[in-house]
């Protein structure tokens, strides 16, 4: 790895790490309401309940907070789309649904957040619901993490007991109930409209958009769907203001972000740093590559974000920086792989994942991931041919942008980026299997003996 010891480890404006969401995680029983309130918890809620809801929407717009679930949609704008008013669409009940169905390969930030500091999520839910005038909030937690469910459910119970949930919260006249809901094992349920279908007791398959959830969401009523980390960030913005929030991160990607670094590094884990931090800076924080074995490839934000290589150590890890090099910020799930890992093998494993999790609703994704898995398995068994590479790219071309939801787009990311940077590695697997374009093999396949 080409790590230069002289490169500046800090971004100019702030410390290399900026614990905001992770600030309370070291405190004893950080998940309890006592610890949370001792450390200024629920102060933002009081400030919010004293304000006009539209002030809060404006604040979040001003802060530039972008969704932490992968797509990076401006949260304040999303809230602003909820129709308000006494009659028409604004008269319907409105809902807040928290997407806690963390399942993108590499992503492991919401689970530790919900375990360590569930009250920041609950306080965020109260403020967000007040802002969009929702009186019911659902937290959809993936089923495979009962310990998160316990912690979140306990936090909800504690918040009810303290009078922060229920009717007429702290005499404000605002009512809110929160229901903690367990999923049942499905990656696609993390897609916002599939999540709504799942929450309605159906198979988790995406809906055609438009209409968007802001107008027709849960039970066809106006609904805000936000990621755990997004909602948990809200109380800090209410307390500190948009200027403070913008003092971290970059112009278009402001704020702190939990980077989850995993794989072949010395100290994997959760590192909260300003958006725009580079992998080179993160690698210095995590103590470098494990056993000094050089970096080969990595993902900036989960398996659905195109792979990057050692050339990309200085790419600012924000929404713009990653897009500029043809990838995406995703969930800042940084999976780091060293030189011992075969790219075609890793791509095969991810493609098997997408095939398993494809919901089956649309043909390009359902059929495409099935055939891509077969081709990749064949290549890894060293039974592929050089033309398989082009076949895969052709199949990917028929999935990307042609699927019902982003799962299909995500499924082709590892393949197209893997071939882009490591084509020779795919071809090397085919050395023992010459292409069928060779005449004698074609004749044999056709049953004609030369």
């Amino acid at each position, binding site marked *: 790895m080409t790590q230069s010891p002289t490169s500046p480890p800090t971004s100019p404006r702030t410390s290399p790490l900026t614990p905001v969401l992770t600030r309370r995680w070291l405190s004893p029983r950080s998940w309890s309401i006592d610890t949370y309130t001792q450390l200024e918890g629920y102060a933002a809620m009081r400030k919010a309940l004293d304000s006009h809801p539209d002030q809060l929407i404006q604040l979040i717009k001003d802060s530039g907070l972008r969704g932490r679930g992968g797509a990076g949609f401006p949260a304040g704008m999303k809230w602003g789309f909820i129709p308000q008013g006494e009659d028409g669409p604004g008269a319907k009940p409105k809902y807040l649904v928290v997407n806690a169905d963390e399942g993108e390969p590499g992503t492991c930030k919401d689970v530790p957040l919900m375990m360590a500091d569930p009250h920041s999520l609950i306080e965020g839910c109260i403020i967000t619901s007040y802002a969009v005038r929702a009186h019911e909030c659902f937290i959809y937690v993936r089923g495979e993490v009962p310990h998160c469910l316990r912690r979140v459910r306990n936090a909800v119970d504690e918040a009810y007991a303290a009078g922060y949930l229920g009717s007429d919260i702290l005499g404000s006249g605002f009512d809110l109930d929160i229901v903690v809901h367990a999923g049942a094992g499905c990656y696609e349920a993390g897609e916002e409209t599939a999540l709504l279908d799942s929450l309605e007791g159906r198979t988790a398959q995406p809906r055609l958009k438009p209409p968007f959830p802001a107008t027709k969401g849960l039970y066809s009523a106006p609904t805000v769907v936000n990621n755990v980390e997004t909602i948990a960030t809200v109380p800090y913005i209410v307390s500190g203001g948009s200027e403070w929030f913008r003092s971290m991160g970059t112009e278009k990607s402001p704020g702190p972000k939990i980077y989850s670094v995993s794989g072949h590094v010395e100290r994997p*884990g959760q590192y909260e740093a300003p958006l725009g931090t580079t992998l080179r800076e993160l690698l210095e924080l995590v103590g470098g590559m494990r056993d000094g074995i050089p970096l080969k490839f990595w993902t900036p934000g989960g398996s659905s974000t195109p792979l990057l290589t050692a050339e990309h150590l200085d790419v600012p890890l924000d929404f713009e920086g990653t897009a500029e090099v043809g990838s995406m910020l995703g969930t800042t799930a940084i999976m780091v792989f060293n030189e011992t890992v075969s790219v075609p093998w890793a791509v095969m494993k991810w493609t098997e994942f997408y095939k398993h999790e494809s919901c089956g609703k649309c043909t390009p994704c359902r059929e495409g991931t099935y055939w891509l898995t077969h081709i990749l398995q064949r290549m890894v068994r060293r039974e592929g041919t050089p033309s398989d590479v082009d076949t895969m790219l052709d199949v990917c071309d028929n999935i990307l942008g042609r699927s019902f939801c982003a799962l299909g787009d995500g499924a082709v990311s590892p393949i197209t980026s893997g071939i882009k940077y490591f084509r020779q590695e795919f071809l090397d697997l085919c050395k023992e299997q010459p292409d069928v374009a060779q005449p004698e093999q074609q004749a044999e396949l056709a049953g004609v003996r030369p």
Partner: protein
Amino acid sequence: MSSAEPEHPVDSANPAFRARPADAAQAADQASGETLSTLQDAPVEQPLPVDTSVFDEQTVRLAREIVPRYPGSRSALLPMLHLVQSVQGHISQAGIVFCAQQLGLTTAQVSAVVTFYSMYKRKPSGEHLVSVCTNALCAALGGDEIYARLGERLGSAEAPLGQEETAGEPGTPGSVTLEHVECLAACDLAPVVQVNYEYFDKQTVESAIELVDALRRGERPVPTRGAPLTSWRDTEMQLAGFFGEPEVLQAAVDAPSTSEETMVGARLAERRGWQAPPMPDDSPLPPVPDKK
């Protein structure tokens, strides 16, 4: 079990779990009435002659407690299926009919959901469920090897245990169902194994074999992150939203959750004195924007 006591104080005190006012239900019905799928979703079939007596009064009561949590009754289906699994250890045809009857759905509608989600098991499962992550990152760090060796250990070298197969008689003490699963959201702690969905982080082949051996002997090893092990069916009861008495929930809530990996960034920042910029003493909210 204790979590099913009728006087569940947390639930009854929790307004979210009380029946909602008629007007709210009506509003929700009106809202949902706009979906195109209403007609085709209308239950038309006759109940099948399937014996659902395994679901006793207690289960019926719990099932009915789930429904009023939600504006629309069908939302209760996923938790209700977890409840069914906590009773039977899998979802049988009787379980499907039971849920259909409780929610006014067809068995086809329930079956579609059961077969869609991977946590619903269609055949009787073991006292414990062992899930091994074999997604790319865990696999690269040893997850594939762990899954292969556990299959051999729980089955035999010639006939390793396959996906969702069980060592021992399903439901009996010490029986173990094995599965490989997709990403478990603990990549910084790879390779990861779960028992009854409680985390056993940073496993090796040796530690994982020790783990399943202990489970087979009837022992209950302590998870790295999560509540002390009971059984997979007990966990399913919690996934249905029933956590037991407050003191039972509190003890489980306080079970360990953090690892060095969870804290590593926060600790490093503390050691180096790194902080986020200080918040201003007073940050007024923006004025109420003018309506366009």
